């Protein structure tokens, strides 16, 4: 469904990705692990169109994304939950959700019911400003907002960062539900190993801008794989 081939990315002279290739299949959870600063966020920025590749290519459903801007990728079905959540601070929860209508087809300009089923807390806070929510609530809002666009691929950047265990469980349950019930493809970047091992159908490990391991969730227990993750 999503194929990244030999992707390189630069910030000025500094190279953040060095020939990364990976694949995300429909109805599956693909997890990318790696230490701080190895290029995980950079790869996601390239996928959602927020930063251009310097070489290589990314294709979605068989079409090369090339120079497509982020809004066209969102309209094509790629939804993004960024690191740090990036909730619109002065918009209410309801308005934050409504920004996703821009990418949804005309008949779909509403909040799908599963958003409130998965994150009931959002329903009680519709009138509050997004910036006034707690970190955990913002994370749930960020995922809910992404679902409003009716995506076929959901890209999440460290959704467990700085979140308490009970909400991490909710998020994990939501991700699994989305794969099983709506057939969404999910690309999940994480540092939290156990979270990935429980959820992933396939895992990649990144180190210094490169993919250094590819395998199933169980492969994460091998010592030669672990060495890429210990600090």
């Amino acid at each position, binding site marked *: 469904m999503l194929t990244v081939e030999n992707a390189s990315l630069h910030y000025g002279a500094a190279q953040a990705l060095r020939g990364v290739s990976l694949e995300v299949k429909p109805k599956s959870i693909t997890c990318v692990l790696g230490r701080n600063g190895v290029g995980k966020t950079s790869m996601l920025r390239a996928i959602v169109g*927020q930063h251009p590749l310097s070489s290589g290519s990314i294709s979605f459903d068989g079409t090369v994304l090339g120079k497509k801007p982020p809004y066209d990728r969102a309209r094509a079905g790629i939804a993004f939950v960024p690191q740090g959540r990036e909730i619109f*601070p002065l918009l209410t929860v309801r308005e934050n959700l409504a920004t996703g209508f821009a*990418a949804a087809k005309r008949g779909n300009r509403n909040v799908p019911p599963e958003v409130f089923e998965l994150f009931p807390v959002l329903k009680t806070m519709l009138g509050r400003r997004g910036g006034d929510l707690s970190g955990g609530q913002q994370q749930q809002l960020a995922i809910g907002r992404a679902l409003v666009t009716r995506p076929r691929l959901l890209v999440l950047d460290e959704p467990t960062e700085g979140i308490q265990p009970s909400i991490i469980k909710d998020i994990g349950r939501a991700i699994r539900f989305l794969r099983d019930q709506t057939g969404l493809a999910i690309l999940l970047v994480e540092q939290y190993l156990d979270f990935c091992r429980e959820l992933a159908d396939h895992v990649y490990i990144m180190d210094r801008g490169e993919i250094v391991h590819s395998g199933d969730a169980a492969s994460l227990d091998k010592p030669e794989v672990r060495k890429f993750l210990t600090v």
Partner: protein
Amino acid sequence: MAAKRLVSLTPLATVQGPVGEAASTAIASINSELELWNGIQNIIYGLSLGSVLLLAAIGLAITFGVMGVINMAHGEMVMIGAYTTFVVQQIIRVSAPGLFDYSLLIALPAAFLVSGAIGVVIERGIIRFLYGRPLETLLATWGISLVLQQATRSWFGASNVQVGSPSWMSGSFDVGMLTLTWSRLWIIVFALAVFATLQLVLKKTMLGLRMRAVTQNRRMASSMGIRTPWVDALTFGLGSGIAGIAGVALSQIDNVSPNLGQGYIIDSFMVVVFGGVGNLWGTLVGAMSLGIANKFLEPFAGAVLGKIFVLVLIILFIQKRPRGLFALKGRAIEA
């Protein structure tokens, strides 16, 4: 009236005895009454000047707030609105003189569309290539402003054109000891109506939501599927259109000439900076307080010196509060 009484009482005040005393106290009370009415007049004149500033500045506030673009040609959008009023009135005079009383109502949408369309063309044609380069944008829009002035000059001539007032706009009425013109009153009402409408557009429409999202986080707005180039073009069109509407109002109280916009651009920028960028309520309060401050300072310092004084006050104020009068506060901002 009070002035007449004052004249007749003044000689009596010099008389010795109870008559003189009574005359003196009467004079004192008349003077304080005059002062009170004078203050009220200053406030009302200040509010009407503030309304003009509000109309001129509000479009600037949204283009500056949403896109971070300093548009030096904004004043010319006001000027184009005033000339649109002139053209509308010419057409009405020739083809349907009976409609003259409605000429301003017809000119409002016309000016909005003309200035708005020119704004969109400028944004699509020039400004969008200069995003993130404030100095180039400043110079380019300044160039555009000169071009628009010159074009108007060659088309309509360099001197003032006559824009008439419909009957309901002309004349005056008395309140207490004041004489107020209808045009002043209508401009206050009109500016507040424009402000309220714009608030509604921003709060209740899809375009408004998208504009606010882009203001707060352009990159994320794009990733939510919002076509940011469209939002930019429409924002610029909206800001320019409102400037055009301001031009219709200004045509009623100021001379309509190719330089019309120049007189307002500096004041408009002051209002936006003073009120706090990205906050329309700040623009409202900023415009009104600058208008009133100008009117109160004028009698002491004269119009020009009064302006300089206000400018100095604003510079001092910005030193203390760089984000303006209504800097947004709270957890929502730090997020």
